[in-house]
């Protein structure tokens, strides 16, 4: 089965964005990893998890992520894609850690969403598999039923367009010099008002003169 077979809220594009957020957080952790100041695989793992969690929390509810929410922002992070609860972990998609197999309280209290959907009873996870240096090599959607992995769907996030978030507003904007000025060479043949009218017309042709803008 594929994610959207479990629930239509779990679209391909949304899962790609979730995977990109997690990869972004992990990338930040790897960028800052420095054994010279005492980093090791434990601190890398802690940072990668927390930075990924931060990206999810930060993106939730913002433009383009209206479908993403975080009902449990604690260190056990639980987030929702539409109406569906998910968690993420680092490790093999086919071999989740025991605590990932168990339903959380929130999951236990979730009522069956819609009849006819196979979500009922399944726990949904996002698995981040990494190489020896901690860089993500695959991020997958994982569905667990009972104690068994029922579905693994590799999320094609690397081939997707990259995330772009809103621009920072504390950087200076450029100066627009405005349209190049032109005037009649022989001013004597055009009186001042005509000249002003003409230049006004040219200004309108050339576009409104702006001193600042993007």
């Amino acid at each position, binding site marked *: 089965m594929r994610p959207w077979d479990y629930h239509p809220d779990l679209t391909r594009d949304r899962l790609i964005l979730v995977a990109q957020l997690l990869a972004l957080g992990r990338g930040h952790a790897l960028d800052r990893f420095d054994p010279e100041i005492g980093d090791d695989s434990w601190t890398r793992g802690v940072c990668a998890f927390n930075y990924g969690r931060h990206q999810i929390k930060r993106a939730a509810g913002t433009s383009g992520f209206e479908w993403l929410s975080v009902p449990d922002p604690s260190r056990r992070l639980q987030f929702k894609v539409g109406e569906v609860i998910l968690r993420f972990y680092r490790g093999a998609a086919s071999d989740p850690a025991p605590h990932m197999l168990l339903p959380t309280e929130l999951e236990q209290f979730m009522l069956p969403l819609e009849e006819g959907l196979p979500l009922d009873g399944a726990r949904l996870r996002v698995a981040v598999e990494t190489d020896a240096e901690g860089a993500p090599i695959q991020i997958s959607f994982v569905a667990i039923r009972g104690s068994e992995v029922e579905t693994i769907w590799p999320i094609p996030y690397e081939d997707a*367009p990259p995330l772009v978030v809103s621009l920072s507003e504390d950087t200076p904007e450029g100066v627009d010099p*405005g349209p190049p000025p*032109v005037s009649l*060479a022989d001013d004597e043949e055009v009186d001042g008002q*005509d000249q002003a009218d003409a230049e006004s017309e*040219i200004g309108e042709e050339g576009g409104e003169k702006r001193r600042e803008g993007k």
Partner: protein
Amino acid sequence: MPKTSTFSGDKLRLARLLATWSLDELGERVGASRQYLHQLETGAKEPTFEMAEALAVSLRVERSFFLTPLSNAVREDDCHFRKYFTAPRAVMAQAAARGTAVELLVNALEQRVRLPTVNFPEFAAPRSMEEVERAAEGARMHWGLGLDAPIVNITRVLENAGAVVVHFADISDRIDALSIARRRPIIVRSQAKAAAVRLRFDLAHECGHLVMHQGMVTGDHETEEQAHRFASAFLLPREAFLRECPRGRTIDWTGLFRLKLRWKVSVRAIARRAFDLGLMDAAQYRRANVHLTKTGQAKSERYDEEMLQETPELLTSAIRLLEAKKPHSLLDMIYALGFSPSLFEGVIGFPVSAFPANAYPDHSPAT
């Protein structure tokens, strides 16, 4: 048959190149041999009155066009071409002819309209990339653009500095752009590649030639690399770029596209800038290019369509002013140039409403 006097072969060649025809193609239209037309162009022969008329009609000029000599024509050596090595000579000659036509027009226009004073700084013949960086920074400071903010509209920067920028839709895509270092610089840009970010980079590249390579023959690897580096440094000054460009072991595509939207420079050029300034190593730079190619962004990138094309305004404003205030002066100027209405509109790239129906009885009015 009566013969015309003082027929200018150079003007015939200019008109033929403006029409983008070969000697053979023109010969087919006027019923003359390639050899004969070549002799006309070199001045070895003069045409009959009827032949001069046929040439004028075919080439969309007035008969009088051929009767004045062409002084100071733009030669290919006067031009800084992008894609110099791959562009055929014929295409380069056509592009130079466009430059000549624009210069004829601008010279005539300047007798009637005041244009911005030419104000280009000169940082001649840099000997290192560090000097190129300084030239770009110097140009930014010279024009009051600072070193910490994007250039909102590079076409306006160049036109306010007195350059004439023109776009031609029908120049071969084997030339991206060319600049002509004359008393008033002219920059001709092909519209074959329409992405706004690429157009901006090409204009910055040509600006680099005008600032650094006055009087030099360009097109070799060194001067092209210098102009390329100038364009990078002009659009992305290193002080601000070092502050804003993301860095790290992994490529931050979000950050790179954020820079693209802010600075209006392609991600490919941003990656190159990051590599040049040591923010990306060779492996990362290669990975970035592979990713762009693999994701179908080699020629057209994500967000290209969200960036508005810059359009030249100087020539348009000058002609519109003349058209509004002194339409007879505009017609006199066009007649003196010897351009037909349709050729004139082809050179300027937009229609003019000032042509009365009987202004040019020998030719069809422009549509």
